[in-house]
C-alpha cells in the first residue's frame, strides 16, 4: 500500500492526465479571451440603456444589477457548451484518480461512471431520513483483502415538496438530505445485532443509546446499539481513536451502521472525485488528500472490525 505523497506524485506526473489538464487550461484561457469582452460590453450596454431610460437613482439600479447578473449567467451557461476539453479532462481525472486511489487499498476494482448503487441497498441501514428523489453514479465494486465485497457510489437524496398557495400557485422546495459517498461492505460473520454511530445522532433519549467511556468520543458521536455488549466489544479504544482521528483530519461528517454482516458507511462529502480548480494544477493536492484519507479510513475500519469479530468470536 502506497503512502499519500508517493501516490500523489505518481498521479500528478501521469502524462495522460497532464496533457488533458493542459488542453483544458488552454481552452479555458481561449474561452475567457472571448467571453470577457462580451461580459463587459453587454454589461455596459445594459447599464447605459437603463440609466438613460430610468435615470440614476438607487432603487432604479437594482433591476439593472439583476439584469447584468442574468445576462452574464446566460453567457457563462452558453460557454459551458464549448468546454469540451474540460469535460474530457474531468473524465480522464476521474478514471485515473479513482482507479489509482482505490487500487491502492482494494483489489479487483471495477469502476462504472454511469452506474448507480440501487436505492434499496441505500435503504438497508434504515437511515432516519425521508427522501423522494434518489440519484447515484460513479459506482465502484472491489474487494477488501481479496475476500470481502465492497461497493460504493456517490449518492444524493432529496426531499421535494410541492405546495399550493391561496392563489392556486404551486411552489416546489427541494431539500438535500444526503449528498456524498455511500459504501457497503459485506463481511463473513454476523454480529447478530445492529450498531449505529452517528455525528449528532437523533437517539439521545433512545433506550438503545450506548454511552461510551471516552469523553472525547462522546463529544463527536452518538452511538445506538441493539446489543450493548457487542457495541462495546466493537468500539474498542483503538477503533474509537480511528473514528476521532478521521474527524480531526478531514472535518467531514460521516456515519456508520453495522447490521449483522454488513457495514454501511456514509460520508457527507458532497460531490466526490471531481477536478478541482484548473489553476491548482492537474491534481488538487488538498482534495486528493481528502479522498485518500476517506479511502484509507474505510479500509482500516473494515479491516479492524473484521479482525476484531474474528478474534473475539463476536
Amino acid at each position, binding site marked *: 500500500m502506497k503512502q499519500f505523497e508517493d501516490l500523489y506524485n505518481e498521479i500528478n506526473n501521469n502524462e495522460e492526465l497532464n496533457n488533458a489538464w493542459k488542453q483544458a487550461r488552454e481552452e479555458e484561457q481561449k474561452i475567457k479571451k472571448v467571453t470577457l469582452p462580451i461580459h463587459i460590453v453587454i454589461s455596459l450596454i445594459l447599464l447605459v440603456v437603463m440609466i438613460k431610460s430610468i435615470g440614476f437613482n438607487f432603487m432604479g439600479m437594482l433591476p439593472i444589477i439583476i439584469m447584468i447578473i442574468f445576462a452574464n449567467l446566460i453567457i457563462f451557461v452558453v460557454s459551458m457548451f464549448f468546454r469540451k476539453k474540460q469535460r474530457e479532462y474531468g473524465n480522464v481525472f476521474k478514471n485515473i484518480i479513482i482507479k489509482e486511489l482505490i487500487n491502492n487499498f482494494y483489489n479487483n476494482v471495477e469502476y462504472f461512471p454511469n452506474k448507480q448503487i440501487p436505492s434499496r441497498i441505500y435503504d438497508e441501514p434504515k437511515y432516519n431520513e425521508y427522501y423522494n428523489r434518489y440519484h447515484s453514479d460513479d459506482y465502484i465494486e472491489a474487494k477488501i483483502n481479496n475476500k470481502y465485497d465492497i461497493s460504493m457510489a456517490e449518492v444524493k437524496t432529496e426531499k421535494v415538496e410541492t405546495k399550493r398557495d391561496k392563489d392556486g400557485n404551486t411552489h416546489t422546495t427541494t431539500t438535500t438530505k444526503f449528498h456524498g459517498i455511500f459504501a457497503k461492505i459485506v463481511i463473513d460473520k454476523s454480529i447478530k445485532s445492529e450498531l449505529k454511530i452517528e455525528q449528532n445522532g437523533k437517539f439521545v433519549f433512545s433506550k438503545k443509546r450506548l454511552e461510551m*467511556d471516552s469523553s472525547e468520543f462522546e463529544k463527536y458521536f452518538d452511538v445506538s446499539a441493539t446489543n450493548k455488549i457487542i457495541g462495546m466489544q466493537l468500539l474498542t479504544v483503538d477503533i474509537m481513536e480511528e473514528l476521532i482521528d478521521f474527524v480531526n483530519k478531514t472535518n467531514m461528517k460521516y456515519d456508520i451502521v453495522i447490521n449483522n454482516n454488513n457495514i454501511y458507511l456514509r460520508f457527507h462529502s458532497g460531490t466526490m472525485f471531481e477536478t478541482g480548480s484548473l489553476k491548482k494544477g492537474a491534481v488538487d493536492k488538498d482534495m486528493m488528500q481528502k479522498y485518500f484519507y476517506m479511502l484509507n479510513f474505510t479500509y482500516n475500519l473494515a479491516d479492524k472490525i473484521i479482525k476484531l469479530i474474528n478474534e473475539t468470536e463476536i
Partner: protein
Amino acid sequence: MIIGIVIGIIILIVFSMYNTLVKMRNKVKQAESGIDVYLNQRFDLIPNLVECVKGYSKHEKDIFEKIVKLRTEYMNNKKTNLQQAEKLNNNMNKIIAVAENYPELKASEQYLNLQKNLSKIESQLQAARRIYNNEVTRYNTKIATVPSNIIAGVFGFKEANLFTIEEYKKENIEINLGE
C-alpha cells in the same frame, strides 16, 4: 400560600433528585449483574483449564488447588463480590500463563477450543466492565456534586466501586516454573 407553593416545589425537586439517584443506582446494579454473568461464564472454564494444564505441568499444584478452592468459594457466595472475582481472575490468568509455556499444550485441540472460549468471554467481560464503570462513574459523580450530594447523604446513597479486572496479558504475570 406562597410558603406552601415554595415547600411544594422543594418537595418536587427532592423527589425528582431522589428518583434520578435511584434510577442511576439501579443502572449500576444492572451493569454489575452483566459483569456477573460473564464472570461466571469465565470461571466455569476453570475446571477444564485446570484439567487441561495439569496433564502437562506437575509443578504448579499449589496454583491448581488454590484456584479450585477460590472458585468454589466464589460460586457458593450468592452475592457478586468484585474483589473476590478479581482475585480468582488473577489466579486464572496465572494458569493461562503456565499453559503458554508448553508448546504441545498450546497446540492441543482441547486447549485451542478453551482459548477460543476464553477470548470470547474475555472480550464480553471487558465490554461489560466498561459499561459498568461508565455507570459507576456517572453515579459517583452525581452523588458527589451539589445539590444531589445532600439528597444522597440524607437517603444513604453510597459510592459504588469501579471494577478493575485484569485482562490476560502474558507480560503481566510472573510464573516461576519448577519452584
